[in-house]
């Protein structure tokens, strides 16, 4: 299916929602050009806010807007959304019981040429520690549109991890998504691969092809939401094969792999787990996305190798 630019889908969905719901606002911190929310600014200038290079105030202003009944979508690079504005998002938005969607763009190695300083490899771990926060990382343009609509319909806070660049459509238009429900992309008896986000779902699918060529049949889940997490699907398919590979564009500490390890242990599932992600002792680096994905062993051949090591 066709590739579509993810940020264009994000912006267009907000424009569509904005026409129906006057409470929808967009708040930017001097990255509107990167996030691509110009169309929203043009359609609803009075509901478009730019706070300048001030991420703490980005989240503070969004929280205040929510306190007056608005539904703000605040965006910045995921490194700043998480590391820099964490206390603001934790307290002013989540603890305060307000309704803020915080969009972290350019997650993990998709930060590419911005390099290690801008490479968020811990945002999921930080966000998982916030009580009640929905954490969504869509895998394609269709699931992204669904994620934005779900966030807009929610009364609570959402962290939307957004890869801005083009991604292939994995789902037919109008496919139904919900929080806590993974999508089964492929079913196989030998192992379970759980992937999160556009980059890793794409690599996981390719890895499943590589494994199939070697006679190993993998089940592949597109997790969609890390919190709430689809516990039932993970338990079901992990129990069936006893072998699990988690795939995250994130450090292996505290994110998807950790969440799966918790579930397997708590549910007493007898399964071995390999966590594909950036190493626990590694910071991000600069390079092309492809180079970084290979360097940090996130790409399909590395996923396949991790899978084989379970046998």
């Amino acid at each position: 299916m066709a590739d579509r630019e993810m940020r264009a889908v994000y912006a267009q969905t907000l424009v569509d929602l904005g026409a129906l719901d006057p409470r929808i606002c967009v708040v930017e911190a001097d990255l509107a050009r990167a996030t691509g929310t110009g169309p929203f600014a043009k359609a609803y200038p009075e509901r478009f806010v730019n706070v300048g290079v001030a991420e703490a105030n980005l989240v503070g202003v969004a929280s205040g807007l929510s306190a007056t009944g608005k539904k703000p979508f605040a965006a910045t690079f995921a490194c700043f959304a998480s590391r820099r504005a964490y206390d603001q998002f934790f307290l002013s938005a989540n603890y305060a019981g307000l309704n803020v969607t915080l969009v972290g763009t350019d997650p993990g190695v998709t930060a590419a040429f911005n390099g290690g300083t801008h490479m968020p490899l811990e945002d999921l771990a930080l966000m998982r520690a916030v009580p009640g926060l929905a954490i969504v990382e869509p895998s394609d343009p269709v699931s992204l549109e669904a994620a934005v609509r779900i966030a807009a319909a929610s009364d609570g806070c959402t962290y939307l991890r957004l890869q801005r660049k083009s991604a292939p459509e994995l789902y037919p238009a109008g496919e139904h998504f919900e929080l806590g429900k993974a999508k089964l992309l492929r079913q196989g008896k030998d192992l379970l691969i759980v992937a999160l986000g556009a980059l890793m779902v794409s690599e996981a699918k390719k890895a499943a092809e590589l494994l199939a060529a070697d006679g190993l049949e993998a089940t592949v889940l597109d997790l969609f939401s890390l919190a709430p997490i689809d516990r039932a699907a993970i338990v079901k398919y992990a129990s069936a094969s006893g072998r699990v590979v988690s795939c995250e564009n994130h450090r292996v500490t505290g994110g998807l792999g950790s969440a799966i390890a918790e579930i397997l242990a708590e549910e007493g599932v007898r399964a071995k787990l390999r966590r594909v992600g950036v190493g626990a002792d590694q910071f991000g680096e600069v390079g092309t996305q492809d180079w970084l994905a290979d360097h940090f062993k996130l790409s399909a051949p590395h996923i396949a190798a991790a899978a084989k090591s379970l046998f």
Partner: protein
Amino acid sequence: MTRSVPTAAAGQAELKELASRAKAIRIGCLESIAALGIGHIGGSMSVVEALAALYFRHLRLDPADAKAPDRDMFVLSKGHAGPALYAALVEKGYLKRELLSTLNKGGTHLPSHADRKLTPGVDMSTGSLGQGFSAAAGIALGLRMEGPRPDGSLRRCYAIIGDGESDEGQVWEAAAFSAHYKLDNFIAFTDCNKFQIDGSTDSVMGLRDLAGKWEAFGWKAIKVDGHDLAALDGAILEARAVQGKPVMIVLDTVKAKGIPAFEGKAESHNAAFVAADLEACLKAMEAEEATRG
């Protein structure tokens, strides 16, 4: 549904009423802290008169409907002065007086720092300094998006920050933002009680010309004695008339105002305060009133 607030300066009768409300807030706050034995007495006492002027003159509210959609909103960004706010909310009729003795006790609706989920009449959860002020700027913008009330009056956001809180960078991010967006429905106060936890503001982190800083950021700044109710009322009236920019009212206050043993001392920030201390305060208030006649 809220009712309109005065547009003329308070006369003698209104000032007497305000003084009586301020006294009740001060005593209610101290009673709640004495019931626990420890609390943020210093920074609570320094904002009492500002709270009295807001809740009994200038905030357009409906105590029968804490979430009245046409209300003004108020953010106590220096959230540790929660006990003073709770006493004001009791006095205004939002909360039952009996609640005051539950301050900071497990399961209470009155936590040390203001909490919008727990306490009717509290519009924002605060405590991590700087954040409430930033949220207040967002509230002012959100209220402006709603447009004026049917009677043409602006829906306003009021906020109080501390002088120690003004060390926080987020305060100045929000300062630039509010001026850039010309939030003239945003009226804020800095409670300059001259002390923060580790000592005087001059010794810990000097703020220099605070009013000048606000002016430089594009705000209208007004300096006023924060315990003089007539001056406070006049400053808020002046602020309400300002167009095209937000207003910062810099309050010259005394930390722990009204508690002789603690007035103007850094140690009053979070201090032991028991029934005997409360008795001493009440006696001092009586003596002061007798002196004034």
